[in-house]
């Protein structure tokens, strides 16, 4: 059976060049970068080299990069660390309603610690309304965080414009660029942000590695307490192989950015066009044009996402869904909800996230596989039956 991985939003495979770059640091070069001997020197040089490459990808200075263990940790460090460092100036924070849980729940923790939080809404396409941001920034707003793009629906935000609002009001601006770094151009100077999160497993690098960029001069309180690693801003023995892997992945992403985007957009458009034309009662979620090149996300009416995923999986196809049944907590994705998608429609959420290794054949295979799956589930669906009968309760 053909195997088609279309779940790159969950995690990307590691490129062979990246794995090759990592391996020596699992074998002979196993030293601790803090050690005063040859093994330590090799490890230290390797992570500093990687720091340079990561900085290069986002137009930053190497010393502004703090390596962390994940996008989640980068966001925890950013939200909690920036807010704690600014709290003498005020205790109000603004984030969008569709932030990743690592931003949202960090902000909720700050609420418990006495901060105030405002969530700004998004429109039906997932775009943050700039006026809403402007309206909600107050005298005591110290931090604004809006993600660069949302991995679930693919919508890319106009970060530069939103950042300007924050800065005019004297607030720090952070963006979660986990879903964009390495996928579309991300340049901290062009985005005019103060801090930016990224993660290895979203750009064909390893899991277990992330980074937070913090502009020189912006204060941040460390999150992980302990030793002096990362300039005293993030303690713990450096994960040398993973850092090296992130560095290599960043280098490759920079080199291949253009061709990757072209490849992915072409596949994405084929997938979106094909799916919409071959299946009825399917809507594209997210913004029609301002979207991640690899993101094809839909709501398929009258059927439920988990069941769809299971049938896709039985055909060798990996995808994901924001339906309630696919979440541990049995709640529909807060992203879809914030976009105003009615809950019963959100249950049909289906996300195909394309990656470098995907081909037109992969897309065509999925396009072939989908109609019988949709059909089978709709034949079982009381909602579809009602819809056909034109009954109330259908749609």
């Amino acid at each position: 059976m053909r195997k088609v991985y279309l779940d790159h939003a969950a995690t990307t495979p590691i490129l062979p060049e990246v794995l090759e770059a990592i391996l020596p640091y699992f074998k002979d070069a196993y030293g601790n970068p803090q050690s005063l001997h040859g093994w330590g020197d090799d490890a230290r040089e390797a992570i500093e080299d990687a720091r340079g490459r990561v900085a290069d990808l986002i137009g930053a200075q190497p010393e502004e990069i703090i390596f962390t263990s994940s996008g989640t940790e980068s966001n925890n460090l950013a939200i909690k660390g920036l807010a704690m460092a600014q709290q003498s100036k005020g205790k109000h924070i603004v984030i969008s309603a569709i932030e990743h849980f690592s931003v949202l729940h960090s902000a909720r923790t700050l609420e418990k610690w006495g901060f105030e939080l405002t969530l700004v809404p998004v429109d039906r396409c997932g775009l943050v309304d700039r006026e809403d941001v402007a309206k909600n920034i107050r005298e005591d707003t110290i931090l604004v965080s809006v993600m660069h793009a949302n991995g679930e629906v693919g919508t890319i935000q106009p970060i530069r414009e939103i950042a300007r609002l924050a800065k005019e009001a004297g607030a720090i601006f952070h963006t979660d660029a986990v879903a964009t770094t390495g996928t579309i151009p991300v340049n901290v100077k062009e985005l005019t942000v103060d801090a930016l999160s990224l993660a290895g497993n979203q750009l064909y690098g390893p899991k277990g590695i992330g980074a937070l960029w913090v502009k020189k001069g912006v204060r941040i309180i460390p999150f992980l307490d302990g030793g002096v690693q990362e300039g005293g801003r993030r303690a713990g023995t450096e994960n040398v192989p993973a850092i090296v892997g992130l560095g290599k992945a960043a280098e490759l992403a920079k080199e291949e950015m253009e061709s990757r985007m072209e490849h992915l957009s072409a596949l994405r458009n084929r997938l979106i066009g094909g799916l919409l034309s071959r299946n009825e009662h399917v809507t594209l979620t997210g913004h029609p044009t301002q979207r991640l090149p690899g993101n094809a996300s839909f709501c398929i009416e009258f059927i439920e996402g988990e069941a769809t995923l299971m049938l896709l999986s039985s055909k060798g196809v990996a995808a994901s869904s924001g339906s309630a049944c696919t979440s541990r907590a049995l709640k529909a994705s807060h992203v879809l909800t914030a976009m105003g998608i009615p809950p019963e429609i959100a249950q049909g959420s289906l996300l195909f996230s394309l990656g470098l290794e995907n081909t037109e054949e992969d897309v065509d295979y999925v396009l072939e596989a989908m109609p019988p799956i949709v059909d089978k589930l709709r034949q079982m669906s009381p909602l579809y039956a009602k819809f056909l009968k034109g009954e109330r309760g259908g749609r």
Partner: protein
Amino acid sequence: MPVYSDKVMEHFMNPRNVGEIENPDGIGEVGNPVCGDMMTFYIKVDDNQLSDVKFKTFGCGAAIAVSSIVSEMAMGKTLEKARKITPALVAQELEGLPKNKYHCSNLGAQALNKAIDDYLKKPGKKVKSKKRRKDEKE
């Protein structure tokens, strides 16, 4: 998959008794698409026995497998026995369900029960059937 048993997978992939019954003796609808799962059970009752059971389900893999196994367990049973199909029995028959899917086994049993209730509360039905049997016996 969320660690579904082989039995769940089998019933999900090949659900038994999918469909509607024309002129059913009872219909039971539970759940709500807003919450993620909705099941409709249709029953045909003959001589106090479930002579046919069919269902339509909108929901996750577990919901579909639960519907299928409940329809199978209920088929041919007397109403009294069908009522004894508890969520625990359903989960057991499916060789286990993940914790966050227990509610699906509740829904299955509920839908069946509701269909039986529906049948029983139809004017005359209950009495008629009991009477008829008595009549026949006499």
